[in-house]
């Protein structure tokens, strides 16, 4: 996992930071070996609760600029610009995405991810399912709007 404080990548199962702690075997937290910041370990239950609170994979910290993401991984509310499609084949799916105006350089904002992915492009809003949302590649532009 990635430390939510300093961004250091580490394996939460190694528990380098807490060998002395007697609770560490089943501890639900993970400490960053670099900065010692304590965070909740990812687990199905935690993800479920986060989903209920509306901050599942989405609500995490804003993704740094210039990283390529699938629309399905973009945090809700963050402005991004479309880079293109994940698949290069000439298919019905790509035709649909073109019809929605998802062309490179167009700015896009994810409005919600449940019960389906809703995004705004120009003056329109569209809903797609997860499979289509994963087809759209985007690049985050700025910080999450409050």
């Amino acid at each position, binding site marked *: 996992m990635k430390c939510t404080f300093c961004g250091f990548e580490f394996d939460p199962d190694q528990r380098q930071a807490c060998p002395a702690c007697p609770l560490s075997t089943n501890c639900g937290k993970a400490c960053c070996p670099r900065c010692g910041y304590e965070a909740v370990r990812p687990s199905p239950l935690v993800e479920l609760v986060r989903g209920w609170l509306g901050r599942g994979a989405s609500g995490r910290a804003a993704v740094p600029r210039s990283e390529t993401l699938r629309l399905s991984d973009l945090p809700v509310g963050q402005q991004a610009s479309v880079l293109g*499609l994940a698949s*290069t084949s*000439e298919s019905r*799916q790509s*035709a649909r995405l073109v019809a929605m105006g998802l062309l490179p350089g167009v700015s896009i904002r994810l409005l919600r991810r449940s*019960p389906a992915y809703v995004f705004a492009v120009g003056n329109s809003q569209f809903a797609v*399912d997860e499979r289509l949302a994963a087809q759209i590649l985007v690049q985050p532009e700025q910080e999450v709007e409050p």
Partner: protein
Amino acid sequence: MSIPIIAYTPPFEAALSRLTAELRGSYPLSLRSVALLLLAGDEEMQARVAREEAPRAAQIERILEEVRSRQTAPIAYRLAQQRQAASRELLRGVIRQERPNRVHLRDRLSRAMIDPWTGAPLLLAALAGLYFFVGVLGAQVLVGWLESAVFGQVLLPWAERLTHSIVPWTSIQALLVGPFGVFTLAFRYAFAVILPIVGTFFLAFALIEDSGYLPRLALLIDRLFKPLGLNGRAVIPMVLGFGCDTMATLVTRTLETRRERVIATMLLALAIPCSAQLGVVLGILAGHPGAVIVWAGSAVGILFLIGFLAARLLPGESPSFYMEIPPLRTPRLTSVILKTATRMEWYLREVLPMFVLVSVALWLVDQIGVLEHVVRLLQPAVRALGLPDQTATAFLLGFFRRDYGAAGLYDLRNIMDGNQRAVAAVTLTLFVPCLAQFGVMLHERGWKTALAILAFILPFAFLVGWLLSRTLAVLGVSL
């Protein structure tokens, strides 16, 4: 030759001029447009060019293949991108747009409709409203008034007197005002029983349709429909089915794959009762809340069970969902009323001849005495369900029109207890689609699929009815 507004990148322009040089046939578009459609992979234009340019087809295909091999993204995508850039260039400095920062009430409402936590209660509220408007106001108040006051006390006695004074032959009298008469059966059912129900439904549906709620409902329901092999889009035919399954079966055309269309057609024929049927079924069940729950639970359970099995058994790609979400709007009264009026007119034109035809057919069969035999064939099945013998006639009528059958059953409601009402309502809901719906199924899905669906539904409806009546008897429940 006109100067093109958009100059594409050199490789595309080169391909376009090579392609236009090959095109000799006659087209309704400019050659450049034809070449662009070819590049974009338009199937219709490819077929037309293959016809018109048969000797040069190989050469054209070679040019297209050359362009395709040099592109990393679909050509249609690249072309659209360049067009968008050109239009942006044109509009630059001409259009200015201000983004309002305020969140409007309609945005909040829209969000509440989509969010599962608030959307589900809103959906239930909408359905409850629909039930009170169509099921209570339409199916009970209006039908009651039209049937007993207008038809029962004024029109029918008048028609009877007139017929008896003009027509001397009893069989012809029966054709007009007998138990299966054109006046007593066809006109009464069409105007007094069905019209108020369908009219109130169409009015409510037009309001829902014009408000922009349906796309939001589709979005809310998408994940629920995926296990059934359908996507959220199918919510529109399904909801329409509660109005008229015949119309809804036509609307399954909007679904993308054949697999989805087959599943939706089958579920409509099986588990979605039309408004007329729904009104009458609720009328039969009125006063027996337990029976309503058993009926609704059975129908929903079967919808999901059969949908789930069909999605497993039918081959093909699982559907994907995409839909534009237009802003919510306050419906315009004039367009709502106009739409309702058009649909009611359509409905009357559709059903009245059918009702008259059915009642003439029934009269004929009744006169030669065949009806009793056919009804007698159905009676063992009906008895196995523990229902009164007369319901066999209602089930038979149900094939001519679902609503017709339900209305026939409605007349019998007082001789049935709660359990019998529940069993009859479930069986009739599942039982065959009406003649009109079956006609549309034949037309839209082809005779093989339509007959297969029919062959499944017929025994299945009675099987479920039988299981239900057994279960209720074994459990000793009386509803």
